[in-house]
C-alpha cells in the first residue's frame, strides 16, 4: 500500500519529465536522420545510424560561426558592463552616505516593472539617431540599461549585509574610497557577481525582440535571429534544420548543466526582489 502511494506520487513527475525532455530528444534524433527516416521508416525512435553530414552541412553552408561570434560578443560585453556599472551604482547607494540615495534607488527600481514593449519604438528611433543601427552598440547599450535595475537590486541587497567594520579598518589603513571599493567590497560580493553574470549572460544570449527590431544586417545577426533564416532555407530538409537547432542549443544547455544551482538561485532571488 505504501509502495503504491509512492508510485502514484512519482507518476506525474515522470510523465512531465517525458513531456519536458522528449521534444528535445526528438530534435536531436531527427538531426541525425534523413527525410526518409524521419517521415516514413522511423519517426519516433533513435536514429539507426548517425548522419553526421547534417551537422557538417549546417556548419559549413550557413553563417552559424558568425552568429555565434555575434551573440558571444554582444552578450559578454553587455554582461561585463552591467556588472561594473551595477557594482559602482550599488556601492554608492548601499554604503556611501548622502541625502537622496533612497529616491535614486527607487528610480532605478521602476525599470524592473516596465514592460520592454513600451520602450521599443523610441528605442528604435534613438538607435537610428545615434547612428548605431546594425552595430554591436545597437544591442549592447539597450541590454546594459535593461539589465541594470535587476543587477543593482541584487548587489544592493548583498552590500547592505556587509558589516561596517570592514570599511572602517580599510579607512584606518589609509586606503582611499576607490581602493576600498575594489579591494574590499568587490571581493566580498563575488557570489552575487557570479549569480548576476550567469543570469544576464543567459538573458542577453537569448534576447530576441529587440534584436529583431534593431538588427537587419545579416553580418550582425545574433544566434536567435540567425535561426529564423533557416526556417525558409531548410523547410524541406528536416535533418539539416534539426542539426542547426541542436548546435544552437547545446552551449546554453551545457552552461546550465554546470551552473544549474546558480541559475535557479538567480531566478528565485529575482522573484523575491520583484514580488
Amino acid at each position: 500500500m505504501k509502495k503504491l502511494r509512492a508510485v502514484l506520487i512519482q507518476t506525474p513527475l515522470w510523465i512531465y519529465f517525458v513531456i519536458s525532455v522528449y521534444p528535445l530528444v526528438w530534435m536531436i534524433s531527427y538531426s541525425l536522420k534523413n527525410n526518409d527516416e524521419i517521415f516514413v521508416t522511423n519517426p519516433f525512435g533513435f536514429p539507426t545510424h548517425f548522419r553526421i553530414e547534417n551537422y557538417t552541412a549546417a556548419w559549413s553552408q550557413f553563417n552559424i560561426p558568425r552568429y555565434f561570434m555575434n551573440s558571444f560578443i554582444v552578450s559578454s560585453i553587455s554582461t561585463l558592463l552591467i556588472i561594473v556599472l551595477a557594482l559602482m551604482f550599488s556601492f554608492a547607494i548601499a554604503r556611501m552616505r548622502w541625502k537622496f540615495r533612497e529616491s535614486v534607488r527607487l528610480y532605478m527600481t521602476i525599470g524592473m516593472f516596465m514592460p520592454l514593449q513600451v520602450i521599443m519604438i523610441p528605442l528604435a528611433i534613438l538607435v537610428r539617431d545615434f547612428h548605431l543601427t546594425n552595430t554591436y552598440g545597437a544591442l549592447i547599450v539597450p541590454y546594459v540599461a535593461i539589465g541594470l535595475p535587476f543587477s543593482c537590486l541584487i548587489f544592493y541587497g548583498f552590500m547592505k549585509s556587509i558589516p561596517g567594520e570592514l570599511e572602517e579598518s580599510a579607512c584606518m589603513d589609509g586606503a582611499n574610497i576607490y581602493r576600498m571599493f575594489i579591494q574590499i567590497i568587490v571581493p566580498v560580493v563575488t557570489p552575487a557577481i557570479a549569480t548576476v553574470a550567469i543570469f544576464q549572460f543567459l538573458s542577453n544570449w537569448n534576447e530576441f525582440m529587440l534584436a529583431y527590431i534593431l538588427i537587419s544586417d545579416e553580418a550582425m545577426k545574433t544566434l536567435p535571429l540567425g535561426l529564423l533564416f533557416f526556417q525558409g532555407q531548410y523547410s524541406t530538409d528536416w535533418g539539416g534544420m534539426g542539426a542547426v537547432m541542436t548546435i544552437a542549443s547545446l552551449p546554453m544547455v551545457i552552461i546550465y548543466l554546470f551552473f544549474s544551482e546558480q541559475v535557479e538561485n538567480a531566478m528565485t532571488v529575482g522573484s523575491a526582489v520583484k514580488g
Partner: protein
Amino acid sequence: MNRYLSNKKAIALFLLPALLIYSVVIIYPVLQTVYRSFFNWDGLSTATWNGISNYRDLLEDPLLITSLRNGLIFALVLAVFQIGLGTVLALACADPRIKGRKLLKTSYFIPVVLSVTVVCQLWLAMYDPTNGLINRLFNLLHIPYQQNWLTSPTVSIIAIAFVNAWQFMGYQFSLLYAGVKSIPEQYMEAATIDGCSKWMAHRKVTIPLMKETYKFCLIVAITSGIGAFVQMLIMTSGGPGTSNYTLTYMIYRYAFMESNYGYACAVSVVLVSLSLLATVIINKTFDRNEA
C-alpha cells in the same frame, strides 16, 4: 569615517554612468512613448498634435478586440498550465520519498535556457499536420483528433500559448518548488498529527502559506500573456489572417510595417496600463485575503 563615505566626487563617479544609460534608454523612452501617443507621426517628419484621437481610433480598431482576447487566452493558458500543473509537480517533488529529484528539477528547467527561436521552430515541426509528432502520436494512440494546429483560427492561439507555457514551465516550477521548500516541516507534521491526510494538509497549510509565491507567479503569467509576441511572430506571423494578433504584435505592425508611430505608441500605452493594472489588482486581491 563620515567624511570618507560622503565624498561627493566619488559618489558622482560611481553613480552617474549607470544613472545616465538607464535614464536615456529606459526612462526617457517611456516618457517619449506616452508623449508621442498624442501625435500623428510617421517617425521621420514633424509630428502633428492630434490630442486623444489615436485613442479614439483605437477603440474602433477591430484588432484591439482580437489582441485583448488573445492576450487573455494566452494568459489563461499560462496560468492554468504553469501554476496549476506546476503546483502539483512541486508538491509531489517535495515529497521526501521521491528519488531522482535533482534529475527531475534539472530536466524541467532545460527548456527555459533554450533560445525562444529554437523552441518555436521545434514546435513548428511538432505541430506539422502531416509529419509532426503531435498528430502522429494521436494517430498511434488511435485518438481521432488530428488538427491543423497552426492554421485553424480557433486552435492556433491555444497551440501557440502552449509553446510558451511549455518553455517556461521550469521557471514557474522552480519558484513554486522553492516556495514549498521554504515552509517549515513542523507545520506539515502538526497538520498530519491532527489527522489531516497529506493532500488535505497541503491544501490547508502549504498552499495558503505560499501566497507571496503565487502572487509573483500570477503576475508573471498574466503580464507575459498580455505582452506575448515572439511566438506569434515566428510561428504564424500573427495569422491565420489577423486572428493571432496581440498588443505587442499590433505595436510592431503599426510602428515598423506601417510607419504609424503615434498610433503604435498609443497601443504601447494601453499595453503598459493593462500590465500595471493587472499587477495592482493581483496585489490588492492577495492582500485583501490576508485580512
